């Protein structure tokens, strides 16, 4: 803790820093989040420290990159926790990390779709979420601070990565393969290119009684077609059981589209969104397999990771329905 206190003092330019609490927060199979209460020159500050986990999903980004993304989003006016300081020195907390302000609220998907005291009126909440997404999509290439994002990633890039992953694991998965091939053949020609969050969905934003307090988990972000994020948000696998509320288990698809169109000035192409919903199930199915492999490889022994693997069949099922 002394090293962490010294880091915070140096980074913030404070004279006196005391760490009152440093505790692992639940959630996040990929990273480790710690609640950090600090007293900085006599003022109590509620923070979150986000640290690299012992092993990572191949496509997820480093904490330093995520910090840069958070800064870009914060600057663009997206509701995110203010990013404060980052370090790649593993000696401070055992792995690279960054520190941001702690936003109040809950992100638990199943609670959010059931408890309407969180975030209030559902149509309004769906509209607010669409506005947040449109705000993210105002960030366009090129951005010097986001050079690490590389070129836009297309559906084809995903399919080729998926093939490489499946070949490495040596698993023959005809259901998933039929889906991947369909995605490759039916990929819409890219139109617009914007910053995509690539995991914008219920479960990845914080809500309290007043509404959205933070959009979280930026580690999958990259350049691409804005419809991809809309499809990810609407995909069945992120409705947490409220299947009839097609926009994230929160509101109607129409309410979400309308608010997005008003905020962005872009016409939402429903056919494109549906394509990206099918894609969402394939991508989540691949990530689920990667998570299970992290356990199998012995990298990170975890019941949670193994159980994520048991979602594969229902994701494959949705994928087959999407291509039928």
């Amino acid at each position, binding site marked *: 803790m002394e090293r962490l206190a010294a880091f915070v003092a140096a980074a913030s330019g404070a004279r006196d820093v005391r760490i009152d609490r440093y505790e692992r927060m639940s959630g996040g199979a990929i990273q480790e989040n710690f609640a950090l209460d600090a007293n900085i020159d006599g003022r109590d500050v509620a923070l979150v420290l986000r640290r690299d986990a012992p092993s990572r999903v191949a496509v997820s980004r480093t904490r330093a990159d995520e910090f840069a993304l958070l800064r870009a989003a914060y600057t663009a006016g997206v509701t995110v926790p203010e990013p404060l300081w980052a370090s790649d020195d593993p000696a401070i907390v055992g792995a690279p990390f960054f520190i941001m302000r702690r936003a109040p609220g809950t992100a638990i998907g199943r609670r959010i779709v059931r408890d309407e005291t969180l975030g209030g009126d559902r149509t309004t909440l769906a509209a607010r979420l669409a506005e947040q997404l449109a705000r993210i999509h105002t960030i366009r290439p090129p951005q010097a601070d986001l050079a690490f994002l590389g070129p836009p990633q297309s559906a084809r890039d995903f399919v080729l990565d998926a093939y490489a992953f499946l070949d490495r694991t040596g698993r023959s998965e*005809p259901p998933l393969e*039929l889906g991947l*091939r369909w995605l490759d053949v039916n990929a819409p020609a890219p139109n617009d290119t914007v910053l995509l969050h690539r995991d914008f969905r219920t479960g990845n934003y914080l809500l309290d009684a007043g509404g959205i307090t933070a959009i979280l988990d930026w580690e999958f972000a990259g350049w691409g077609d804005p419809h991809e994020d809309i499809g990810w948000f609407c995909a069945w696998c992120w409705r947490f059981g409220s299947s009839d509320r097609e926009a994230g288990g929160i509101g109607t698809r129409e309410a979400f589209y309308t608010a997005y169109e008003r905020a962005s000035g872009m016409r939402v192409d429903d056919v494109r969104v549906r394509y990206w919903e099918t894609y969402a199930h394939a991508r989540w199915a691949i990530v689920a397999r990667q998570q299970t492999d992290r356990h199998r490889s012995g990298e990170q022994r975890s019941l*949670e990771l*193994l*159980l994520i693997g*048991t979602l594969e069949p*229902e994701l*494959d099922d949705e994928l087959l329905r999407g291509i039928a």
Partner: protein
Amino acid sequence: MTDDAPELRELLALARELLQSELMPALPAGARFTAALIANALAIAGRELLDHGEADCAVADARDALTGFPDDDDLVVAIRSGALDAPSPQRLAALTYATTLVQRRLAVTNPARLNVANRDGNGSISAP
């Protein structure tokens, strides 16, 4: 399936029941999430011990109907090459096989989805 299966199923079912009725209410919130994961794992293990003979036969039949690909590796090569892109009896047989395979797996991981109209489940791993 061995003759011990019913007793093993009962063992897992009772363990799960006790976990949920006696332990979970007494646990702090963080540990309750872990307990929910364990309950979920026990339910999956219990369903693995059910008799899946019929579903296994359905998979084998669907695979037999899909001729021209000695094993699934060959099938995957054909799918990736585009040989099954166009509508054809073979594409239909491949889709049927894939669906049957997924249904067999769902019988263990999420049987509520076996009803064609049902899209239960929620992409979440701690569902009750």
